């Protein structure tokens, strides 16, 4: 089973969600800036690599966790992936897509554009961290709900 956290650029919010899911980041407190910077692939996704799923690790239920950037085209890209799987006789429940763009702080968006599109990570990266720290409880809540749903649906634990 594979779980894909997706967002606009696949560099910040989805990476953070995947890291919370995999316990790279704590759930009971807001992480410090250096903890975000230590996450693998944080603020690293290049524009030309959008659409490429990045493997983050395997969770305690045995699910493979991936991160993928889809620009603002999730309504096109997700059906394209699912119809491709369908054409290859892979059932949809094997791939689950979760949007990490919940309660995105505007500063995160501005920081993401500055860092990834304008190529100024020294300015953009701290802004993304600042924004994500503000919306961190929402991301933790999202991941908790995802894990609960998976556990309930697939009868884990």
């Amino acid at each position, binding site marked *: 089973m594979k779980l894909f956290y997706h967002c606009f650029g696949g560099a910040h919010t989805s990476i953070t969600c995947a890291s919370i899911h995999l316990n790279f980041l704590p759930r009971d407190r807001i992480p410090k800036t250096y903890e975000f910077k230590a996450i693998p692939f944080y603020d690293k996704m290049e524009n*030309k690599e959008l659409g490429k799923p990045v493997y983050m690790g395997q969770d305690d239920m045995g699910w493979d966790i991936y991160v993928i950037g889809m620009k603002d085209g999730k309504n096109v*890209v997700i059906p394209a*992936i699912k119809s491709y799987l369908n054409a290859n006789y892979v059932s949809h429940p094997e791939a689950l897509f979760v949007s990490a763009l919940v309660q995105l702080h505007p500063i995160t968006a501005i920081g993401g554009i500055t860092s990834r599109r304008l190529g100024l990570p020294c300015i953009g990266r701290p802004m993304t961290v600042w924004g994500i720290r503000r919306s961190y409880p929402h991301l933790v809540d999202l991941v908790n709900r995802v894990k609960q749903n998976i556990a309930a649906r697939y009868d884990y634990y």
Partner: protein
Amino acid sequence: MKVVYCGYRGTYGAFLLAAFHLGLYKEQDICNEKQAKKHFEICCLYGEQYGNLIYVGMDEELREIYVLGCKRYFSVIKNSQIYINRIFRLEENLCHLDVGRLEGIMPRIIGFLLARRVNRTICEKLFSYWLSRKYHIFSRKAREIKQNLKNSKMFIR
């Protein structure tokens, strides 16, 4: 092997190229009114299906031919399908071809008008004009693509 012809909408240039590839449209023929009408009907029915792989047929070398409407997300969809192929170990050769530049702006205008239920006859006239202009360009391109596929220059696994 799967060959996916991609356009902003999957039923205009992408379908035309797929039809030439499969021999549904003949190179020597001139584009007649009946053919244009049938093609226009396909555009009306399936033009708005973004992200949905539409199976068109199988060519003489047993390649499966699909069309896909991918709006502005061709590169994202291409990346995602190629890497999904690897993640799920589908062992399928894939070739994505973007016909966006070749088909021009007209299909986008026609599709836009059709989606807003502007007079169908006007749209049909515009479509016939576009088809007659592009018919031989696409037939030449289809021949070129088939030759390249035969020489195995274009696919990615």
